């Protein structure tokens, strides 16, 4: 191959390399960017936000289920461990789940896996000082893989007439630093 041909080959290879690095970087970073934007859209961190029944105007998160009422707590563990409390609806499907900053669902428990009518979840970042806790039989303790993420409560809406009671139940859910949220009894 001529010297000019070798030079062209070098520049083409360099372009392909840059394209691959950019592509792989974009694919890796995309979920982190989507999650950061979603957490921002969902509202103040370490606060429980209860949504309305999703309809065509719901634009915060893609592909919402119109048959589910959601309560979301975007969390930031930089201020200490988090306590999430909520009544549990055993009348239909209900779940509490956790997502890390890369959008992975690293925890989920549904109403059939929780005894009792209330749920308490403590979320701790690895290496964080352990919070002072009283004795409780049904306490979920979780290590969060990333400092920021989301706790999401789902409650199936069986019929329209169940909606007010279900909404009132989700509005009792709390999310905040351990000191700021009391355990439901």
């Amino acid at each position, binding site marked *: 191959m001529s010297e000019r041909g070798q030079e062209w080959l070098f520049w083409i290879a360099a372009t392909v390399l840059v394209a691959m690095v950019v592509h792989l970087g974009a694919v890796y970073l995309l979920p982190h960017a989507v999650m950061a934007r979603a957490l921002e859209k969902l509202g103040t961190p370490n606060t429980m936000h209860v949504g309305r029944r999703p309809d065509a105007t719901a634009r915060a998160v893609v592909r919402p289920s119109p048959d589910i009422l959601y309560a979301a707590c975007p969390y930031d563990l930089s201020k200490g461990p988090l306590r999430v409390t909520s009544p549990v609806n055993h009348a239909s499907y209900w779940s509490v789940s956790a997502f890390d900053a890369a959008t992975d669902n690293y925890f989920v428990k549904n109403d059939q896996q929780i005894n009792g009518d209330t749920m308490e979840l403590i979320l701790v970042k690895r290496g964080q000082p352990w919070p002072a806790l009283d004795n409780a039989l049904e306490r979920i303790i979780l290590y969060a893989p990333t400092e920021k993420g989301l706790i999401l409560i789902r409650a*199936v809406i069986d019929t329209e007439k169940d909606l007010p009671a279900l909404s009132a139940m989700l509005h009792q859910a709390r999310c905040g630093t351990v000191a700021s949220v009391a355990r439901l009894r």
Partner: protein
Amino acid sequence: MHVAVKILGVVVVGVAIGLGATWVVVVHGNMPGGVADGPWKTSLVFGSAQSDPYTRARVALHGLFALNSKETLYYTATEDSDGHALDGKCRYQLAGRDPNARWWSITAYGADDFLIPNARNLFSVSATSVVRQAGGKFAVDVGGENPAGGGNWIPAGTGSFSLTLRLYNPGPDVALDPEHAVLPSLKKVSCP
């Protein structure tokens, strides 16, 4: 040509190709699915740390906050049972029995991944809302104009759309073999 110009060219073209490939592979399109069951596609790694980077990125864009497959299986249909892309102007019929799960729903989404506006605020049918025939079978009209008699109907706008079938707490046979789950068929009935 000056070397600096060549380097700039490599960077500009490389970035353009890299981002273009990302758009084609990840941004453009729908929920990924490695497992197909008729028109329905799903994956057992949605939402989980076992997801490959491409699945994770596509789920983040097209199905954010999906639960892992042990809790919920998400099947998506972008084509009917004959392999033709779904079009809201056409009328389709979903027919079958309750899938094996504690609770299920089927929802229509527009090309933008959001619920499709319609006068009756109808977006889905579910285990609790579907009207069943004697024997437990159901038939649901999807798309087209409001069918006479109402009942089971999911409006689908006037453009391309997709359906998501959610199976909450899928039965063990479905969870182990999602490719052979008994799911509703999706047949085109008519097009204007």
